[in-house]
């Protein structure tokens, strides 16, 4: 191993630099001028996107579960408008609903497991020691989470289109707002879970425990009209129920649940602020 190259000295070390030392912070002669460094968030996003492309298996659950269950459930109740489904085509009801299953799967399963594995292996510690700010990390993971949702959501619609058809949007603005707010809400929850839970295994256990009841009661299970009183009262305040109703009803033209949408937006802001303040690196 050669040892002839001089490591550049620290710029402006505390105390006197040794006599004859290279000018502090000086670039080596002939070196290219320093490039403008990207922000910490941009560097993290770039690295994570590369890793996602290189290891698409991390997206397996988010991609496969909603598509497979949507195909099964969507075909179970036929395509005739049904009273239990607010007089809409049940298959299309589920297509609209399952877009939020993608959101929940990303926030409650994929991100917690991914980030807890980082904690377990000491990746988060390394990022913290290198000075990555908590907000940079959270924002980068938010971008990654949203990108995953866009990708998996698109895959769901591509599969649904030839099989059940994609329902036309009755209120695109409201649907978009609900999708964005719901995604921010669940991705923030996922970041919090992933950075607080000690291991990938515990994150998987907690994540699945939160995901499946939410999935069955709030998006992918029976419609609220056919649920029993107890199940319906449990389902009603669940975050995924609120997100699903805020997306599905204006999409299918069966309602404009403003209070639910505002609640989702409020929860999303709270969850994001909480994640930025409390996520542990």
């Amino acid at each position, binding site marked *: 191993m050669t040892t002839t190259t*001089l490591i550049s000295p620290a*710029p402006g070390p505390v*105390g*006197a*630099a040794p006599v004859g*030392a290279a000018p502090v912070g000086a670039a080596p002669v002939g070196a290219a001028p320093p490039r403008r460094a990207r922000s910490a968030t941009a*560097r993290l996003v770039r690295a994570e996107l590369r890793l996602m492309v290189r290891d698409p298996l991390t997206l397996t659950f988010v991609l496969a579960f909603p598509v497979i269950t949507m195909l099964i459930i969507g075909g179970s109740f036929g395509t005739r408008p049904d009273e239990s489904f607010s007089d809409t085509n049940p298959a299309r009801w589920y297509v609209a609903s399952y877009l939020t299953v993608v959101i929940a799967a990303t926030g409650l399963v994929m991100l917690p497991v991914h980030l807890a594995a980082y904690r377990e292996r000491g990746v988060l510690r390394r990022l*913290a020691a290198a*000075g990555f700010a908590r907000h940079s990390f959270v924002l980068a993971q938010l971008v990654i989470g949203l990108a995953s949702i866009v990708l998996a959501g698109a895959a769901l619609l591509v599969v649904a289109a030839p099989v059940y058809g994609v329902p036309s949007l009755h209120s695109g603005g409201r649907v978009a707002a609900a999708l964005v707010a719901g995604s921010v809400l669940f991705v923030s929850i996922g970041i919090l879970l992933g950075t607080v839970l000690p291991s990938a295994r515990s994150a998987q256990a907690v994540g699945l425990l939160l995901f499946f009841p939410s999935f069955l009661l709030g998006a992918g299970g029976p419609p609220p009209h056919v649920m029993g009183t107890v199940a319906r009262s449990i389902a009603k305040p669940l975050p995924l129920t609120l997100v699903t109703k805020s997306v599905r009803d204006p999409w299918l033209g069966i309602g404009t649940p403003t209070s639910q949408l505002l609640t989702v937006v409020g929860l999303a802001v709270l969850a994001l602020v909480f994640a930025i303040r409390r996520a542990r690196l």
Partner: protein
Amino acid sequence: MIIGMTDHEDDHEVVTVADLRKSYGGRVVVDGLSFGVGAGEVVGLIGANGAGKTTTVECIQGLRRPDSGTVRVLGLDPTRDAERLRALMGSQLQDSALPDRLRVGEAIELFATARAQPADELLAQFGLAARRRSAFGSLSGGERQRLFLVLALLNRPRLVILDELTQGLDPSARRGVWAAIDQLRAAGTTVLLVTHELDEAEALCNRVIAMRAGRVLDAGTPAELVARHAPWVRIAFTRPGNDGGLLDALRALPGAFEATRAGDQVEAVGERRLIAHVGAELVRRGSIPADLRVEVADLESALLALLDDGHAGVPTPATPVPTPTTSLIGATR
């Protein structure tokens, strides 16, 4: 005046730790620790497992919040000013990793800030130039350590904290890393080194701080610690048969603790000055053994003596002499 600091260092303090305490679930890990690191110093934290070394540096890095006490680094509070401070520090951590599929060059891109120096030279210096496109998961343990060192130095830090610097490195790579630390010292960068490798501490550090149970046992240059806690030498040579009272003569020499014979092997133990006196005695007798060996106690001997409640520091004719770990004259500084 903080234990472990010299008078002039108070003026250019990079790290100040005063009465630091940290417990985990009632188990005290750092117990009223105080020391300082001056600008441009290479300071080593040494001690047995569980001495609290890593917890101490984690408090200095702002990765852990102290229960009480004061930690100042470059004039900043590591907990309150963590983000500002970490931009000025380079850290090589024990037990950390990168994502397996992240490539070496991408890790450089990820960790390089506006202060970063050209990475090509660093990668070449640490033997990683050819591994730029290799995934972290495919690197050997030694290559990973070297990559972490590159990342620690990448942004021209004012303070470099190295925890178990050469763990997993082969001897050649170790020497290369040592040379790099020497260069950092020459460039005036302050280095805080946590290590179990006492030859490493001895070779690299201006000063070492010996810890046990979260406290400072003693601090000083490696040579000072050896002089205080293991000030002995062992001189051995072969002298067959009747030696004309050689053992008695050796025992009577100034600074001698003991002289013994086992078959043809003669051994004398005593203070360092005994080296000269034994040499003179052998010259006087006109017979200089071809296999004359001198073993000087090193930092490891000093630490062992320190950890042994300070009772095994100076062997006397009545106490057994610890086996030295260095067999080169002048190996201690």
